[in-house]
């Protein structure tokens, strides 16, 4: 009002000056309201970020990280993994294994209720397993419960006891069960699970209840007052969908989100931030350069070894990952309990590489490029377009191998094309990819001979001894015995060098210091006990 009177009294004030005042006061208003909003908002709210909309808020169908991240707060599984990736009770209180290790009996917790008030029983567990095994269900998780190519059987003993019957002993069962949130039978029975509304407005048993999902923007969860482990500390969990990496980083820096991944090259700058704490660990994944082992060029084991010696992997890590990674030594991620360093290691030694190649009959021409019987030593590396690290690493590999006399070409291909047209049919010479492993070290789908056709053995690796070791390891429950089997497996694989194991990437997650109750950082995640997460005032 005062401004208005002033304006009326001042006959000289022109239109433009009035406009300026308007803009100024608008900004002032913005600033004041902004401050008050900051005070009022996000008291008891944890704000997380997702890189994309979840596909299904239904753990039976979900298979990509945004969905799994949200489902983690909404659903429970029979068992869950602790900080050391070992199974501990969740919906199941305890379990018994029969003598022949094929019959698993799970005793469920009583008095657990769904978010809508219905009681949780063994029927729900049976329904969930039936849904994930139904061939009509559009899920990629079916393989988790296919043992020896047969579906597991489930039978209900009473309301709170359930038996899972396996065709043969299967060590990863508990880990796989930890990946499958239980869904309510009373809601989904008789519905087409693929198209159900449930998938975007779910009902679970977890510490938080679904409230709202604004497509492409925000997902809001409210605390479950009746959670079986007690009322969660926090009132709300919010997921903001931020598609660009820069956007997420800025949001983390400016406090618009509480948790976010930090790219290696930004670590140094952000480690000085007052309001951020950065957690670091090695995830269950590794990058590798795989060869098509049916290609006459790569059937020669000595040549593969020479290529291993010819690449300076530490240098790649130092520049591509700004040093935040570890040289990969074999086919099992370094954070797995089955990881062994008692393997054949290939240090960077270009001279040795040259000597091996010369011995194998590859001789340099005038330009230093090797050839044998008129054939030049040359191959193409495929990688997924958009994977910045893979692209940079390919260029380094090209550079290092050129020093040894190998001519490398690089071809980025769009990711879904890479899968369907290049990797799966085995139409490549070399491919740069990463494997993200399950918490259980079982990796039969990647190395088994019969997985060339049915699994993920793109490189066509075939070794009966490895088949036998991996089969034995997945059917043995004793962790000590499994460790020895996987140790032998890693020894053989590194000796044969079917891949060049490149690096174990380091995961770096920045968390706003106002958040407390985070579990020990590791591949199992930071929010193992969501009900204990709390916001502290500062």
């Amino acid at each position, binding site marked *: 009002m005062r401004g208005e009177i002033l304006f009326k009294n001042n006959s000289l004030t022109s239109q433009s000056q009035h406009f300026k005042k308007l803009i100024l006061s608008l900004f002032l208003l*913005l600033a004041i309201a902004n401050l008050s909003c900051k005070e009022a908002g996000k008291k008891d709210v944890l704000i997380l970020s997702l890189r994309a909309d979840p596909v299904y808020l239904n753990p039976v169908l979900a298979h990509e990280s945004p969905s799994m991240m949200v489902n983690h707060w909404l659903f429970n599984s029979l068992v869950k993994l602790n900080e050391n990736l070992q199974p501990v009770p969740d919906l199941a209180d305890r379990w018994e294994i029969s003598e022949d290790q094929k019959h698993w009996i799970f005793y469920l917790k009583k008095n657990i209720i769904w978010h809508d008030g219905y009681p949780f029983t063994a029927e729900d567990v049976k329904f969930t397993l039936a849904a994930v095994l139904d061939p009509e269900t559009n899920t*990629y998780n*079916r*393989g988790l419960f296919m043992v020896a190519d047969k579906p597991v059987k489930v039978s209900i003993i009473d309301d709170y006891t359930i038996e899972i019957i396996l065709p043969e002993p299967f060590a990863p069962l508990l880990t796989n069960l930890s990946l499958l949130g239980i869904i309510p039978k009373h809601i989904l029975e008789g519905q087409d699970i693929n198209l159900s509304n449930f998938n975007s407005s779910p009902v679970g048993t977890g510490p938080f209840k679904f409230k709202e999902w604004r497509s492409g923007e925000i997902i809001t969860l409210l605390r479950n007052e009746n959670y079986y482990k007690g009322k969660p500390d926090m009132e*709300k969990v919010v997921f903001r969908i*931020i598609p*660009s990496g820069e956007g997420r980083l800025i949001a983390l820096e*400016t406090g618009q989100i509480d948790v976010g991944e930090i790219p290696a090259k930004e670590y140094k700058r952000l480690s000085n931030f007052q309001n951020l704490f950065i957690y670091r660990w090695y995830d269950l994944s590794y990058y590798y350069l795989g060869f098509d082992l049916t290609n006459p060029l790569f059937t020669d084991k000595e040549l593969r070894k020479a290529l291993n010696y010819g690449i300076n992997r530490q240098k790649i890590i130092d520049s591509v990952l700004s040093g935040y990674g570890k040289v990969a030594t074999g086919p099992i991620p370094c954070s797995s309990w089955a990881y062994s360093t008692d393997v054949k290691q290939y240090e960077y030694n270009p001279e040795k590489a040259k000597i091996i190649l010369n011995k194998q009959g590859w001789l340099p021409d005038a330009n230093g490029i090797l050839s044998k019987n008129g054939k030049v030593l040359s191959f193409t590396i495929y990688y997924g377009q958009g994977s910045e690290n893979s692209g940079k690493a390919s260029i380094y590999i090209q550079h290092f191998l050129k020093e040894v006399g190998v001519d490398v070409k690089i071809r980025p291909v769009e990711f879904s094309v890479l899968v369907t*047209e290049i990797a799966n049919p085995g139409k490549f010479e070399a491919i740069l*990819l990463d494997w993200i492993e399950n918490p259980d070290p079982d990796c039969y789908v990647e190395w088994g001979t019969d997985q060339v056709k049915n699994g993920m053995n793109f490189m066509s690796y075939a070794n009966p001894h490895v088949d036998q070791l991996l089969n034995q390891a997945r059917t043995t429950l004793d962790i000590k015995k499994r460790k020895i089997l996987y140790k032998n497996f890693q020894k053989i694989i590194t000796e044969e060098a079917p891949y060049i194991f490149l690096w174990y990437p380091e995961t770096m997650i920045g968390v706003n210091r106002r958040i407390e109750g985070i579990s020990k950082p590791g591949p199992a995640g930071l929010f193992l006990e969501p009900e204990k997460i709390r916001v502290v005032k500062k």
Partner: protein
Amino acid sequence: MYKYILKRLAITIPTLFAISLISFLIIHLSPGDPTAMMIDPKTRPEDRERIKKNLGLDKPLPQQYFIWLNNLVFHRDMGYSLVNGKPVLKSIMERLPNTLILMGLSYLTAILLALPLGIYSAVKQYSPGDYILTVLSFTGISIPSFWLGLMLICLFTVKLQLLPSIGTISPDIGDNIIIQIYDFIKHLIMPFFVLVFTNLAAWSRYVRSSMLEVLKADYIRTARAKGQSELKVLYKHALRNAMIPLITLIGLSLPDLLAGAFVTEMIFSWPGMGRLGMDAIFHRDYTVLMGTIMFSSIVIIVSNLITDIFYVITDPRIRFD
């Protein structure tokens, strides 16, 4: 005129049919499929084949097309997303309001500002004002929107902490409608500014050059010679003629109102149609993609029709025949 409009509308049906056939073929023949978006040790090729079959992607292409067409024409059903099983129409409707508000407001503002600025530049050609506007508009044309967006975020979000950089609402904003609207406006400012600035720059140049051309015409000299006021000369004789190319330009931009602006949406995490369409392309979500293509085709056809009608209104030489 009504006859003409009816005739034009009748042609749209075969046009839409042709568009749907061609786009269906192109998107299905491009390599990759909806089941290939994930690759990790859990994704077995066997599961991929099974899911493809469940989704009907194993059927011959002509059959797939007729199933899609049949559902659309006789059941008015655009189908379900192949990736998340949501109805396609619902996916589009969730995003449409955000896109309409952002694009509509910024295009309208850009046009309303482009007209006076362009006319000013043309009338006062080579004046200091014209030079300033020219420099500004060339800056606007040459600055990429993602850069401008990031710079704005850098200034207003990171440095000044005045404006939020994500989405359309703040989490935990409460139920007070006034605060909600205020919060929405705060989220709108930066993406709005980016779109206004880049479009205004280009459009004011068009207005300027179009006006300049008309101002040199003989009939303007005649109008001045017969003693009409400068205002009348400018707005009645010059502007009306200068508008014709502008109508074409604006007509061509109308479909953007619904298609969204992907880059700006990415930078500001704005949940609009551009991101929906791009995600559908990356995931090979054929049904959603067909939905958005058909949607924008209809808009393009309708806006072409509107453009043509406006020609008649502004230019008496053009007749409906």
